[in-house]
């Protein structure tokens, strides 16, 4: 059983479009050492490198927060837009309308998404815009120094001892309910799973919503927090093994019949999910919703690909746009001829 080989750390390793992994890096991170967000940036770099993503097709989008700073730390030769707090979905939507050929990678925080940005998040999910939307979820506001966010669990405590007494928003359940066509949950500490999820998201067309547990070592990594490294490691409840085989690689895996679900993604890549006792199929919406409930009631959190609907029409398809980017249409295709204006004027007489 093999997914794409992680390239050797040594220099000189080149991907299928001739780029070294170095070329997927950004500027040096300014986040705290050990911050989960940095680990996620590493996974994004790794996934884009392995998938052979063309950096000049990528737009990186974010709101405001420590998490939202991180697009500066990966894919340095891609365009990026660090917008305003909680409103990245609208900026990303506009960018994709302007140029449907772009690959949108959005990074948000649990505050950026769950609090100020919940409205735009909800409508982004409804539209199924082609975008990868990553929530770097630490249960608190890192950049404003540790206040609770809306994903903090009931009973979780701040460093100061304050207890959270409001129920959390489950962004995965919300996204599935609202129409996102690819919903996953992962943990910044689980390199293998996060890589597979990211690559699968890059192969998907539609909104890929990834809630990634990403502990804040400075404000929310203490005992009593349900978003600490220790807590995450001990409560992570994977929905089985996840293997990703990109469309450009030979499939040389052999699964014993009946042991895996095989999900073909938009670009022809394949995800193999080992079947668990429950026989979890991420194409089953009902099952997806109930696994989220079940694990929550057990006090754990399900990770892996929770829901996928590979063929759901995306927002740009529904708009029936021309194939070329709207942004670069020449004048003669966007300014109607004089006769049109004359006819309109005639009609107004």
């Amino acid at each position: 059983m093999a997914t794409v080989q992680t390239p050797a750390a040594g220099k000189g390793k080149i991907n299928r479009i001739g780029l070294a992994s170095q070329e997927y890096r950004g500027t040096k991170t300014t986040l705290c050492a050990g911050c989960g967000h940095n680990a996620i940036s590493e996974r994004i770099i790794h996934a884009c490198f392995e998938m052979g993503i063309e950096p000049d097709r990528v737009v990186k989008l974010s709101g405001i927060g420590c998490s939202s700073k991180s697009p500066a730390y990966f894919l340095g030769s891609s365009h990026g837009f660090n917008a305003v707090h909680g409103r990245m979905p609208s900026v990303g939507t506009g960018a994709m309308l302007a140029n449907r050929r772009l690959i949108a990678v959005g990074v948000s925080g649990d505050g950026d998404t769950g609090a100020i940005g919940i409205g735009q998040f909800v409508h982004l999910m409804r539209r199924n815009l082609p975008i990868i939307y990553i929530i770097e979820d630490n249960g608190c506001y890192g950049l404003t120094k540790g206040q609770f966010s809306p994903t903090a669990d009931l009973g979780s405590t701040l460093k100061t001892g304050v207890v959270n007494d409001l129920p959390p928003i489950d962004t995965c359940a919300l996204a599935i309910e609202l129409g996102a066509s690819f919903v996953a949950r992962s943990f910044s500490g689980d390199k293998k799973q996060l890589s597979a999820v990211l690559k699968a998201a890059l192969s998907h067309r539609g909104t890929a919503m990834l809630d990634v547990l990403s502990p804040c070592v400075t404000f929310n990594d203490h005992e009593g927090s349900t978003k600490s490294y220790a807590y995450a490691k001990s409560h992570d409840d994977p929905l089985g093994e996840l293997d990703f085989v990109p469309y450009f690689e030979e499939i040389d895996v052999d699964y014993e019949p009946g042991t895996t679900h095989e999900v073909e993604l938009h670009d022809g890549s394949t995800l193999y999910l080992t079947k668990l006792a429950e026989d979890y199929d991420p194409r089953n919406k009902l099952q997806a919703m109930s696994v989220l409930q079940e694990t929550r009631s057990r006090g754990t959190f399900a990770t892996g690909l929770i829901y996928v609907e590979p063929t759901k029409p995306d927002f740009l398809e529904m708009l029936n746009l021309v194939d070329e980017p709207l942004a670069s249409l020449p004048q003669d295709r966007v300014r109607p001829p004089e006769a049109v204006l004359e006819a309109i004027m005639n009609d107004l007489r």
Partner: protein
Amino acid sequence: MAPEVAVQEAPSQPTTRRIVNDFSIQVATVNGSGSQTANLVLLRSIFRMGIPVSGKNLFPSNIAGLPTWYTIRANRDGYIARKQDIDFLVAMNAQTAQEDVVSLKPGAAVVYDEPLNLATLRDDLTFYPVPFDKLVAGVCRDAKLRRLVRNMIYDGVLASLLRIDRAEMERALEKQLGRKPKAVALNREALDVGFAYAEQHFEKRDPYFVESMDATSGQVLIDGNAAAAIGAMMAGVTVVTWYPITPSSSLCETLIDYLRQHRIDKDSGKATFAVVQAEDEIAAIGMAIGAGWAGARSMTSTSGPGVSLMSEFAGLGYYAEVPAVIFDVQRVGPSTGLPTRTAQGDVLSTAFLSHGDTRQLMLFPSSVEECYSMAIEAFDLAERFQTPVFVMSDLDLGMNTWMSQPFRYPEKPLDRGKVLDAETLDRIGKFGRYRDVDGDGIPYRSVPGDPMPAYFCRGSGHNEWAQYSERPDDYRKNIDRLRSKLETARNWLPAPVVTINRKASIGVIAYGTTHWAVVESRDQLVNEEDVQTSYYRVCAYPFRDALTSFVERHDRVYVIEQNRDAQMLSLMKLDLAPELAGRLRSVLHYAGHPIDARTITDSILIQEGYRVEKTRPQPSHVPQSAGVGGE
């Protein structure tokens, strides 16, 4: 004590006085009663007889059941601003009929629904009672249709009384109802019935007549929102995002219609545009900014409450230097205010929209033609200056019907601004997104998806290489460059329209729809008191240098606007030397209905020390204009 209401003889005798092509008609109905068709047919038939007209709808923020007034002004001299006095009332609404009649000036004429029994109210008016229900019963059985067709009867009555060309009226009806032959036939019958009734029962006793003339040939009738929509389409807009709000909704709705007709690729059947009805105005402008950043020509359209919500993104657009066009069809604020009434109240808040040292570019169309041409220009300017551009229309312009010369096809190609290409990159060496290479404050930009070097766009502090920076010198340099960019814009934006009158020691400044009342008022000032004025019509902000020389030329300058706080005057004070700023006076009108010439003339005369007869109080639904400024 009971008022003495003896039965009055009809007072007015057949008149020999003729007032031709100079009167206003007001139709008082209930909203939701479908009077719009009848009113537009009336307007268009007078227009087609070659007489200058304007049509203004005074309507409530409500879907059905509240009073609505539609005013048509016909004026042979081409004055099409609102006029205070109503000469001809059509009273269809029981709720307001009495008040409407009481507020008329002596000599006015009233067509009314007979059961309203209005003739006893006054003895100095001419009354024409019409049994609308009886007449409509003969035309149509269906009760629901009857309500709609009923209004067409008053068109027939007016055609008879005012001598409106019936053939033009029928053509106007066909135009209005288009391809609905049944509806056309039914309404034509109602017209005929009204006409026949008036011919049989009324002797003409009022002085108002229309006579064909030749002042409108070749012209069109259109509202400002539709005009702006056509402009946006001709500007090559590709991304349209919006959230419904009166009075701006019809701009995007009309635009959607036009785009669907004219911007679908013939070969593929696919759209060269994207329209998104966003979840709110924050998302609408966010999408417009995202699209502008990625190289599209993007726009949104809204009104005051939406502009308030857009504030944070407007600042991002300014500081991160992203083009987008925002139409602000202004309505009366603060807050929800009077959603269906007009004002010029967003001038100051839009100029500085967002926190920090933000300045926004604004254009001020005063006619439907300028709604069209400035819409086109706005897209060029947004890309040229890489910043949001606000087109400041208002409800009066956007939703009312205006006549206009047909719009001219744009001569200039699209100006996509300083978009980096290989040649430029060669010339400038290294790409710095926020570097002032040409000394005009405008940097070069690359666009996602193009092969040029990328940059990281952000609303946080940045240096000329678009790197995050909190260094004082980087901050200063950048924010000063932004100012110099505005200095470049100042004399690039549409020029003011200036009329210098060598005999004048006083100047008048106005913008937007106030223009039409100013044109008429300047003539009144000359005709009544020989007060000569020069006129400076503002078309854009930041102001041109010409503003200074205009104020220098005149001893006193009246800034006329439709808001309480003298917003444009306040902006001008920031630019003018204190001595010049001291010359500015205000004429302010803020009652919700469009400004009229009388208000301006009286206010200027009073401030100039003339004695002015107090004008009659206005009807209560049209509150007394706030008039005299500088108080």
